[in-house]
């Protein structure tokens, strides 16, 4: 402690420098690009911004992006929670391996994800043919987008719910059982309320991720305007065709959505901590 105080009294500069460097790095890498985009997107005025966002192609792309992300989130919240439950509560051979495989979708390059899905569900594959016979078009259509998003966001909910389930006091469930609650009532009235924050956190992160997913979606769904062209693909296309402002405006919407989710998550966590700590 003495050494520390002497150090800081005599030579305060290294510490200051380090702090400054850290903050500057954040500024240069994150804040500046963000500001640059926000400024350029809104510089021509709100009317122009609004026009760029509501232009039919852009509007459809945004709608499609949010819709598919929402569907993915709803499905992922249920399957992710169920998977985490199985991993935590059941002993089965190969559980360790399964647990390790959960993170695989994070490691697979998204374009490869797209290729894998096309190989499985594409029109040339057996599964794709069966689906086509049943009248379901998955690849090169909107269901394909949801499939791709589910794949790339697979670990989020699981990894967020799993530790909470592990740390959960089983006695609460036992207490519910002794009070007459069956497994369903216990899950929905006792377990789920404790899991909600973690499910929401995982889902929100997955949602954010889904908003910006490009590689797998473009492989699986193609780039069909007004059908499968999501916002990120639209942004890329606009840049390619020289419409910088159109790209910036749509990007700004995506960015705003992500920021909003982040802020909401923080607020949620604060509230949860406040209740648990008091």
């Amino acid at each position, binding site marked *: 402690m003495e050494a520390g105080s002497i150090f800081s009294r005599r030579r305060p500069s290294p510490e200051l420098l380090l702090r400054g460097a850290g903050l500057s790095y954040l500024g240069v890498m994150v804040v500046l690009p963000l500001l640059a985009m926000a400024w350029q997107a809104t510089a021509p005025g709100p009317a122009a911004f609004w026009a760029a966002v509501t232009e039919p192609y852009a509007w459809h792309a945004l709608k499609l992006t949010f819709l598919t992300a929402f569907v993915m989130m709803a499905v992922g919240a249920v399957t992710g929670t169920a998977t985490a439950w199985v991993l935590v509560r059941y002993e089965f051979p190969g559980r360790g391996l399964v647990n390790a495989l959960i993170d695989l979708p994070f490691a697979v390059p998204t374009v490869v994800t797209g290729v894998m899905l096309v190989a499985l569900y594409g029109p040339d594959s057996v599964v794709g043919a069966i689906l086509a016979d049943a009248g379901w078009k998955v690849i090169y259509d909107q269901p394909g987008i949801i499939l791709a998003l589910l794949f790339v966001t697979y670990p989020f909910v699981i990894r967020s719910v799993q530790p909470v389930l592990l740390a959960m*006091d089983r*006695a*609460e469930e*036992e*207490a*519910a*059982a*002794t*009070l*007459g*609650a*069956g497994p369903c*009532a216990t899950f929905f*009235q*006792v377990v789920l*309320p*404790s899991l909600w924050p973690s499910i929401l956190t995982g889902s929100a992160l997955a949602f954010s991720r889904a908003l910006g997913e490009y590689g797998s979606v473009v492989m699986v769904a193609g780039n069909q305007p007004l059908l499968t062209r999501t916002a990120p693909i639209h942004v890329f296309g606009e840049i390619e065709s020289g419409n910088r402002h159109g790209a910036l405006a749509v990007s700004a919407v995506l960015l705003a959505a992500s920021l909003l989710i982040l802020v909401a998550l923080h607020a949620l966590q604060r509230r949860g901590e406040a*209740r*648990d*700590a*008091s």
Partner: protein
Amino acid sequence: MSVGPFVDVDAGPSRARPAAGPSVAFHHHRGAWPPPRVEAWRPEDGREEKNVAIEVRGLSKKYGSFQAVNDVSFEVESGKLVALLGPSGSGKSTILRTIAGLESADSGSVMLTGEDATDLPVQQRGVGFVFQHYALFRHMTIRDNIGFGLKIRGVPRAEARRRVDELLDLIQLGGYANRYPSQLSGGQRQRVALARALAPRPKVLLLDEPFGALDAKVRDELRTWLRRLHDEVHVTSLFVTHDQREAFEVSDQIVVLAEGRVRQIGPPQTLYEQPADPFVAGFLGAINVLPLRSLKAGSVGGGPEEWLDMPPAEHAEAYVRPHDLDVFAARDGKPYWPARVERITPLGGVVRLDLRIAPEHPLYIEVPRDRSNGVGFATGDEVYVCPRHINIYDRVRGSFDPVDVHRAIGLSLESGAGI
């Protein structure tokens, strides 16, 4: 039952052990809450008619190769507060959880108020369970916690509300109805847990180390409170503890367990005064263990080894409680044990004397303060001790029998022992 718990072990030293079952005679009836079903009188048992709320028969449970519970049988009379007392690993929690249906036994049966509950799921057993770490629903208010069992059972809202209010009054937390468990102290949380368990009017109340997570002062208060509460509501209660003082203070009956087996069943004072075996003697309060061989070696002749009506100095030990010994300054011609005072520790109401007896054996005695003043011992003094009550444990025969000291001394004096 392979280990017989005994209640009537106050006979002479050479008395054979009765192969009695675990039945315990209960002498007074209290009203049960709710009124239990009257169990049919069973003449084949030869027992008097009584209401048995919990009956455990031949319960066994193994975890891997570890025998957690080994052929345990006992019963709890309606309206009683009974303790399952034992060291950790004695299987007491497993037994309690098996009665609740939270765990299943490998063999044996559980009867609750006369009905076979062995195969009933936990939800249908109608037991209230209180957990060591409260296990309150943390996202629910106190009111919702207490009302949970009523809501699940579909009790009408207004009635449930009345019942919850009633219980909030009972646990003296009326003003806390809308708080969350995290806003309450440990003692308050455990009271809420108790109210939650009582709300649906369970047939029996099971408490798993209910005070174990609390600090000493709160624990004492809550114990007294639980005892008073039980006297008010009379719900048959079985609680698990490893703390013999807690069992003594709270319970009507104690079931002593060790290594998964019942060692003895009886009212606290009976267990203390008439322990069935060395384990019970040592677990329920302090006790001195003195090898008879060493007593003999150090005796000056005419010592206790002569008046003890026992064969076997080689493999027998005397068990004697610190307050069951008298200390004298002079031998006075009596067959007392000579000893030397090593340390005198005043402990408020009593004085602890650490003695060294017959060449090399420590012995500690507690005597009332005023008496020790009267005797006026000092460290290093030679004193003489005489037990008022001892038990002799014979390792070979496995017997643990009390000795009628006065009679024994009388006999040895007649036969010329002493001076």
